[in-house]
């Protein structure tokens, strides 16, 4: 099965993994409803690297919730009002795209684990937590 750059991170965090379009993806870390609620109330982060063009050098994260901007502005001086822009997060170059739920961030796959952990660290004061695909589907519904 294909693996995102965060596969080992998800495993270590105790995620329930499943197959989705040939990829191993995290369905939930503990409870999908709680994860979705957290992302609605403060901020959460989800690995969407499996939404993927062939031979893509990027990993994709969705950062969602009312505190998203507060977390990201700790890590980037990019103007977050823009719909889409190249910038950096924690000194890693990336592409930001605004999304209905928050921001979609594309970072080079090799830097993905570093950037993911930097976002989690920056979000600690906002009680950030990762959410799985099930929570993501709830948010989209």
């Amino acid at each position: 099965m294909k693996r995102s750059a965060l596969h080992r991170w998800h495993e270590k965090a105790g995620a329930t993994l499943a197959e989705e379009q040939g990829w191993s993806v995290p369905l939930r870390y503990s409870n999908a409803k709680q994860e979705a609620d957290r992302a609605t109330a403060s901020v959460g982060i989800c690995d969407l690297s499996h939404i993927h063009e062939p031979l893509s050098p990027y990993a994709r994260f969705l950062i969602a919730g009312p505190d998203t901007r507060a977390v990201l502005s700790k890590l980037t001086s990019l103007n977050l009002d823009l719909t889409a822009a190249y910038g950096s997060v924690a000194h890693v170059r990336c592409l930001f795209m605004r999304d209905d739920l928050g921001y979609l961030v594309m970072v080079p796959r090799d830097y993905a684990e570093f950037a993911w952990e930097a976002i989690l660290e920056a979000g600690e004061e906002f009680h950030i937590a990762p959410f799985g695909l099930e929570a993501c589907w709830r948010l989209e519904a």
Partner: protein
Amino acid sequence: MAIHFNGRQIPIQEGDTVASALYRAGQRIFTRSFKYHRPRGLLCCAGNCPNCLMNVDGIPNVRTCITPARAGMAVKHQNARPSLDFDYLAIAQRFDWMMPVGWYYKHFTNPRMWHLAEAQIRKVAGLGEAPPPDAPEAVYEHAHMQAGVAVIGGGEAGLKAAREAAEQGERVVVVDDQPRGVVPADSKFSLLSRSYCFGFYEGNLLGVLQSEPHSGARERLVHLRAKRVVVATGAYEAPLTFKNNDLPGIMLSTAVWRLIHRHGIQPGTSAVIISNELGDSNIAAELRNVGIAVVASVPPSDVLEATGGKHVTGLRTSRGNYACDLVVTCGHRIPDAGLLSQAGAKLRWSAEAGAFVPVEFPPNVTAVGDVLGAGLKAAAMLPAPAETTNKRTFVCLCNDVTTQDLSDSVAEGFDHIELLKRYTTATMGPCQGRMCQLQAIGICARETRRSIPETGVTTSRPPNPGVTLGALGGARHHPIRRTPMHHQHADLGAVWMDMGDWKRPRYYKSAQTERECVQQEYAAVRQAVGVIDVSTLGKLSLKGRDSGKLLDKVYTSRFSDLKPGRVRYAMLCDEAGIMLDDGTISRQADHEFFITTTTGNLDFVEQWLEWWLAGAGWDAQVNNLTSALAAVNLAGPKARDVLSALTDCKLSNDAFPYMACRSANVAGVPALLMRIGFVGETGWEIHYPAESGEHLWSALMDTGRTYGIRPFGVEAQRLLRLEKRHVIVGVDTDALTNPYEAGMGWVVKHDKNDFIGKFALGKLQGAPAQQSLVGFTMSANEIPEDGAAILVNGALAGRVTSARYSPAVQKAIGLGWVTTAAAEGASVEVRVAGRPVKATVTQHVFYDPEGARLRM
């Protein structure tokens, strides 16, 4: 509550700065000057001058006048031996005749003499000393902030602008560096206190340095991006020029005001005020209110000189002489417009204000308050009259530049303000011209008989004020780049090494010592099979009808004639024939190539290809696949056995010869296979999608188990390739190496039409090489370090670039640069642990010179 000053306890009060506490305790000399070690005391009390720089808690050059005093702080003086009050280096003043302006350039034209003098000069001149290497590490942070409106300066005008913007619903951030005591609590905007803006960058990005943002960090560098910037940096007061104007006890009127009102200090007992009629009445009343006798008030044009040794004792004027212990100067007030200037505003001379004032602001940048220069009045004659020219009238306090120095420089021909700055170093010290720029411009104008606007101002550049190296470099986030198989290496006991941002396994911990581990990995590759993660290689795809043309132009060999399914070694040189990078290029189809580059040079090669493609009108597209692909090199006599169990691709010598490439599935993963041999054994480099990185690696390890497979790291790879004399660009070559010297002339194809470096390489081909890259074998079993000296008859003849113990030769071997004569001489010595050891130069490859094992 106290601070420690040079080991002495100094009591502190609420609202004290380090400087105010010291002043209250009777300290008058705060620093010794840069060159002459003249005593200097508090001058501005606003963080604008160099006179109060001290070492605070191990940090040099701290502006103590704006640093809040905190109980237990350790404060030490700088650049004075043994003490501030008695500094034997003050003898330098007696020898000022030996130190004319530009004396470095005049006296030290002989390099040997300079090297002798330099060590002494460095001890005598300068500011604080860098913390020693074993100093406790402090935490420095980087942070990012965004604001609708950023206000620089928390004075009256700045706070008013901030409130107004906040009431309109803007997100407002105020940056303020002054110790103002209690700042009005206002939840409508956020305040970065103890912060200064040191630079204005493109797109309204502000560099802000915040001291002690919280108890866990010493400084935080804030990248502040604002839609609109309001500059409210105000105006600062500058000194006046007269003889001995730098004595302790001579203070700016604003400094006196701060000592009285902010710190409740009576700065002296009897004072003389130097002021024209416009400014003196207020300050005289202030002084009398706190019980200071005002002895006299004189206009600047009447002042002859200040008298006194370590402190001012009087003032000589054309009206008479006055004894005093405080001289208050009401100088020019100058708009602090450096940031506006960096933002793109123009500075225009205003004779009325006696200053350059900012005009024509760029969009989304405005200014409020005194920085606009409205209401400022010229305080004294500018330029100062020629009579004030002597070696004791100081213009630049930071670097001890006098009026005499400036006049002499103009006479020597440095008559443009920018040249004058660089020659005298006036405006180039810690105050960045705040104290001296106006007077320097005035003297330049006077001596060149130009007007002040014709003379102009020097350019303000960030950082201004200075920034600690810790804050610039100390970001806690150092990005880490991991290959897709990173965690598998960790599971296998990888010992890591850094290559740029990448983590690579140096070796795998399978035995006690590194040497044993590397030997085991080496043995697996030579005798069975090994696998190494080479995902860090740069990987570029090149597509389009003219791809071959581009490669022929950029690389030294020919690629347009490379047959699909073949691989060729590729070297890239610049126009001067210098080797820049190497790798392989394989042709997958008529119009499709795959390029690998060295790990460190990927970005360069990608840009280089794009650069030569731009405007050429060729059909070729470069696509960087480095992060999208994992790559491994499977090598060793059993490599074919392992690989054939995982793929339908025919791997026999006939079907898949050396230097061929094929696309095939390996363990169900679509992959590009190249049969190449950096380590000198039959092997395949396999490139495949990164998301299958772990899957294919596991498949190779599982299948290879019965064949004795081992993962190998960079250290074993370096040894394996050294036995094959394969050069690593950037390790065995440097920024001056051409292919002929490196013994790789075969890679340059002069029969090609045109390629980068062709002309230079054509000349180099025939020219006798100055030095050559050679192999050597050590006589004894000792391994020189990389960079060790190579000697011929005891004289230096070159350097080692790589050396290892070779199991194949059973001796230490290496590569190194030697003079051409030494290369032919065969017998040299290599320095190992300080003593020469005999070595033999060889042109042979150390292992399998015919390359038979690559074709097995």
